[in-house]
């Protein structure tokens, strides 16, 4: 799935960051340098950023301003990183907390 806007009616061409690759649970995902990790994931249709600890229900970005923590993932080994306000760097390793089989 591709949810990138591309050319916007008012803003023109969007997503100007350098194309890079990040690894989500080991899988390569194309991203733009500097954009929030959560946005890069959403762009390719990855909406689940964690699974709830007790009932293992999928959760996704909700507030996009760093408040709700639904998007908190493990990034380069650091847990509870708010991916909606953390920018992409080339080669980042992102893991989905609570994902079974990982």
């Amino acid at each position, binding site marked *: 799935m591709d949810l990138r806007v591309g050319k916007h009616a*008012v803003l023109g061409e969007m997503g100007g960051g350098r194309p890079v690759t990040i690894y989500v649970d080991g899988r390569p995902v194309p991203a733009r340098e500097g954009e929030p990790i959560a946005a890069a994931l959403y762009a390719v249709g990855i909406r*689940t*950023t964690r699974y709830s600890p007790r009932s293992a229900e999928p959760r*996704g970005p*909700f507030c996009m301003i760093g408040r709700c923590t639904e998007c908190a993932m493990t990034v380069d080994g650091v847990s509870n990183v708010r991916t909606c306000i953390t920018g992409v760097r080339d080669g980042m390793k992102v893991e989905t907390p609570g994902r079974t089989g990982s």
Partner: protein
Amino acid sequence: MSLPMKDVELVVVGGGPAGLCASLEAARAGAQTLLLDENDRAGGQLFKQVHRFFGSRHHGAGKRGYVIAGELADECLKAGVEVRLSSSVLGFFPGGELMVDAPEGVYLVRPRTAVIATGASERCMAFPGWTLPGVMGAGAAQTLVNVHGVLPGKRVLMVGAGNVGLIVSYQLLQAGADVVGIVDIADCVSGYEVHSDRVKREGVPIFLNHRILAVEGEGGVESLLVENVSKGKAVRFSADSLCLALGFTPLAELASMRGCRMVFREELGGYLPWHDAEMRTDRPGVYVAGDAAGIEEASVAMEEGRMAGISAAEELGLLSGGQATARKAAVRRRLQGLRSGPYGMDKLAAKDSIHGS
């Protein structure tokens, strides 16, 4: 534990319209000003406002929000404000120090004066399926699409026919999404007619007297159950995204933590720090401005920010009594103008009731 300590004359927490204007006024008066913001650029929520602003030329009418944000941020730098980004304020302690988590490490700030301009968060509502990925705040969707160029989904249902719900629906259309409808439990549209006309012209149906019953889907939103509350009949929509535009509540935990007296005002979004007309809280040297001082709109936030910045500069002894009085009177006149319309009257009454309490 010993952390680095930074002494400043003024610290401003939050680089949105209120914080930028507070910093600007204070720095121009000569205050050594530190502006902290959690994001990697200043501007706050102005960055996602791609529509042209209403109001007077003084508040950037006719300009789009992100243009205003860029201009204010540039002016702050020119005025000598030290802007530190990607810096989260973790605490504002009763002793008057703030703890900051930043790329350069964790450190403390000991300010002589402080302006809390931390903005607002979106209100939420619980219903079956509300935690499924694909359900998000309308403001979150607006950030995703207008700032990052990513759609929240291909088919979106909006809940809330206020200005935010209407504007974000239109902006989702502009970006290429399909908006299947706008649902509101009220029997009339609460947003401006100019915004509702715009979405109606694009063929988006507005379902008044309707409410969201449930969101269904396996790993995320796939369909939605919407009920006509007057007829008790439910309809199922196919959609991959649900946006909630239910209003905002002040983000003022730092003020509460600092020991500021809090008051509750429904019209202003809930709990907020008590403050006077010059944005002074009941803690010495602590000011508040913008949505953190009660939900209004960006132009009001800018003026409250200016007021707080002037008040802080006066307290620091950088403005003479006469200078401060004249500047505050000008801000007060503009605030009165902004709150004079039918939508501003309730806000004005609520604000007055706080100042007098």
